[in-house]
């Protein structure tokens, strides 16, 4: 497997692995690894690094909604231009073009339901190409980006065994 892919697979699950550690694990030169990472950051192969957070633990009650959006595509640009109109809003976390009964799946975050409702009714559904929206609020998160929320990752093994 090529080196770039192996680096990406490792840091996809743990972005905090240093170039030094990666170099040891992959038996490669540290500078080479660092250079590859820098290049991938520059060419947007690596778009950024974020943290998976369980906000409940600090008592923050923000809400997330998944909105199914039906749109009228435009000549020449198809769905891209309307998608851009939507993803430019900072409250939009993700936008996907979907197959099936609707076109765009939009994930929106807000401090409370009112925030999200306002976004949908004032910003999203009023866009010219948007035909309809269906908003689903997330009630509970079980797993996100491979991390399970409730089950603490405890090592259940005996401390010493032969």
């Amino acid at each position: 497997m090529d080196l770039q892919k192996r680096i990406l697979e490792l840091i996809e699950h743990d972005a905090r692995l240093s170039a030094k550690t990666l170099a040891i694990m992959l038996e490669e030169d540290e500078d080479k690894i660092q250079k590859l990472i820098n290049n991938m950051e520059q060419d947007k192969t690596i778009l950024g690094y974020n943290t998976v957070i369980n906000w409940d633990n600090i008592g923050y009650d923000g809400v997330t909604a998944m909105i199914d959006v039906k749109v009228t595509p435009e000549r020449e640009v198809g769905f891209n231009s309307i998608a851009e109109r939507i993803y430019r809003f900072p409250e939009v976390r993700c936008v996907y073009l979907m197959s099936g009964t609707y076109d765009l799946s939009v994930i929106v975050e807000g401090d409370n339901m009112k925030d999200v409702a306002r976004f949908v009714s004032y910003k999203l559904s009023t866009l010219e190409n948007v035909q309809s929206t269906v908003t689903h609020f997330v009630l509970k998160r079980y797993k996100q980006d491979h991390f399970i929320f409730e089950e603490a990752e405890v090592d259940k093994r005996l401390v010493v065994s032969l």
Partner: protein
Amino acid sequence: MSGMEAYISDVVKSIAPSGIRRFFDLVSQTEGVISLGVGEPDFVTPWHIREACFYSLEKGYTMYTSNLGLLELREEIAWYQKRTIGVEYEPEDQILVTVGVSEAIDIALRALLQPGDEVLVPEPCYVSYAPGATLAYGKAVPVETFDQDQYRLRPDSLAAKISPRSKVLILAYPNNPTGGIMYREDLEALTDIIIQNDLIVISDEIYSELTYDGQHVSIASLPGMKDRTIVMNGFSKAFAMTGWRIGYACGHPDIIAAMTKIHQYTIMCAPIMAQKAAIEALRHGEAQMRKMVEDYNYRRKLIVNSLRQIGLECFEPRGAFYCFPSIEKTGLSSEEFCARLLTEEQVAVVPGNAFGYTGEGYIRCCYAASVSNIEKAVERMGSLIQRLKNQ
């Protein structure tokens, strides 16, 4: 009644309790320990395997199976052995499903040994072979293997320990605790001695999938060796299924029949739910198993490098998930070093002498641990070593 010791059989009394019992107790009393002392994967059994077990329970598979194990499972094992070690076994009479390799070793020794027969055990090695021989009224004869040989068994070391009573040779590669493996040519160098001295080989290949340098070679695949080798393997290490207690033995029908006699009266059969899960593992577990092995390999490189950085000599392990650095330079015995590492730095590793006297001066570090725990543990080990140097 008090003082019942007089009732205990001599053979059981003759077995020393596990050498590191005291150390176990010490570890369990210490808080905030980072443990590199475990002997099992840090992965939980892959979900599809667990799910297959639930499904079999839902379907009501809760009964005995054939003594040999489910034919379906034995067929999968036969196919697995053929594609991995290149040896063909008949599912009907050459494969016995056991409660882990541990049971397979026990019943093989009991099936083979006459009182006083000798079992050649290359050391350092896993702890159950010598007591297994004793319980079968045999005698374990340690054969030394050395750091400078990467813990491969040398023909001259083996030849030196052979006597007229030698009957069984145990080969456990990839090796716990050293991480040593036997390459094809190392095994080839042994076959003449084995055949000339009419030895039976028990080949414990439980770590076979965890081989990081080429493909695991089984001695059973070498000319003239299939009939005199009992290959043992299982699911614990490759598929992260230690608690399921499921393994198997493959060998000559006469030997398998003798082992089955003991198995049928003492165990009856391996638990059906574990057998069902094992079928799933062999049919669909390969991809996830490869992923786990790749992951161990990354951590193997990390730990060896880190241990060398703090000044410990460590041969590069090529198998299993252990490394076995020398702590001789510290001037402490293995047990002293481990006790101090535990009390002063809250890191648990296993003293090498737990695996036979040849392991004295070494410690076993298991790298089935998270990257951050490996880094932290070795860093703490480094602090202890630095302090010892300054004293």
